[in-house]
């Protein structure tokens, strides 16, 4: 096996394009999973099971099927229903939806960890239900779950290469494109592997630091 630094140099323009797409997918997928996961978690506390049951069933189904299958479904089946998105948009939606079924459990744990005395104090002060959630419960719950959410961001980062299968040119897609054009495989694959480590490892250190600060 020969290592060719020229191939690395030639790959870098592809690399930066791929990195931009990967980070974009990660950022948007994270935002969707954070927002949607919170919506699921709150709906699961609805007083009526006519809300809890469908939400519970749908999210359980999404959590129990592979992301890859969901990705194919959204990419090939949605257009038949007249819903056509770009490959990247489809990928972001799939990742965001899939991970929202995990973040909802994180939020649930965070909400349940808020002591019952906080609810009682809010009742004693006559705070409206909405205000109790936004001013008392969620600020405390979310503070506790920031590190757990961070871990899912890292997991999502490592799942972004799956978007290659629906033609998104993220890091792995760019590496494959370069390989097919230049018949050099080792260098681009190695470069993106190292890039994943260089992003994930500092991110996990950051999460550990946050954990020490936020979770008591």
């Amino acid at each position, binding site marked *: 096996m020969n290592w060719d630094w020229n191939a690395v140099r030639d790959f870098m323009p592809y690399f930066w394009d791929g990195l931009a797409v990967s980070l974009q997918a990660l950022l948007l997928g994270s935002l969707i999973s954070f927002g949607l996961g919170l919506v699921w978690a709150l709906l699961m506390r609805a007083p009526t099971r006519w809300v809890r049951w469908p939400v519970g069933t749908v999210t359980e189904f999404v959590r129990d099927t592979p992301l890859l299958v969901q990705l194919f479904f959204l990419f090939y089946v949605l257009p038949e229903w007249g819903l056509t998105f770009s490959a990247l948009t489809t990928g972001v939606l799939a990742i965001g939806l899939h991970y929202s079924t995990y973040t909802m459990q994180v939020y649930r744990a965070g909400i349940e960890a808020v*002591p019952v*005395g*906080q609810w*009682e*104090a809010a*009742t*004693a*002060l*006559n*705070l*409206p239900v909405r*205000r109790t959630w936004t*001013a*008392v419960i969620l*600020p*405390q719950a979310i*503070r506790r779950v920031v590190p757990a959410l961070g871990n899912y961001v890292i997991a999502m980062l490592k799942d972004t290469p799956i978007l290659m299968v629906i033609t998104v040119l993220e890091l792995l897609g760019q590496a494959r494109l370069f390989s097919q054009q230049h018949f050099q495989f080792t260098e681009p694959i190695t470069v993106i592997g190292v890039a994943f480590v260089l992003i994930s490892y500092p991110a996990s250190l950051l999460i550990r630091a946050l954990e020490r600060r936020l979770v008591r």
Partner: protein
Amino acid sequence: MSADTPLVNDPDAHANPPVDGSELIRLDHVTKRFGSNTVLDDLDFSVESGKHVTLIGPSGSGKTTILRLLMTLTKPDEGTITVDGEQLFPAPEKRVREIRKKIGMVFQQFNLFPNMTVLRNITEAPVTVLGMPKDEAEARALELLDLVGLADKADARPTRLSGGQQQRVAIARALAMRPQVLLLDEVTSALDPELVAGVLDVLRDIARTTDITMLCVTHEMNFARDISDQVLMFDAGKVIESGPPERIFGDPEQQRTREFLGAIL
């Protein structure tokens, strides 16, 4: 504190200011069970406006449950509860909210909001529930903090304070809503012994200088003797004896009361 607006409770703030001595709280045939355990057993009692009533008795005798029922933190299984002439269970949400405005509660575990400063703990409800302007609420909160001896802690986080300081903030927070009734649920039980006196002094001060009605569950018998107009002795979900503190502490009629007082004094 300005002379024309009493700091702690302002009778003019309520549509029908209660005449001192009128019945403010009434429980009729109230029964509360947790599983097979009956904590309140067909209980009747009433509290007159402006009075300080202390509930004493062994743990598990239902004292705290009465406060929790009045604060709507739990529901009775049977019986009716009336506050200022309005029935509480069952009641539409709107009426419950109106009744709750008349009642403040201080908890054993303080239950301050750790995500807010001391000042915002106190201003949060006056601003969002009573619609008080923020600067007015803050000015009042600072006066209340002064009253409880913590004027310098307005910007601190509750978790930075001692238990006694947290409990005094919780008292200020309850008073900020200008309640007619203050419910005190074993407010010194979670405190280190050296911090108890500071909290009780604040409460003595409030009892002496305001016409607020107090319902107090406590094991601090000297405090109960000092502030109470009436003492109720509970046992197994029933009031077994009641009367002025001099008589209950000095010459109890019931053997059970004598045993209880003998065990804790």
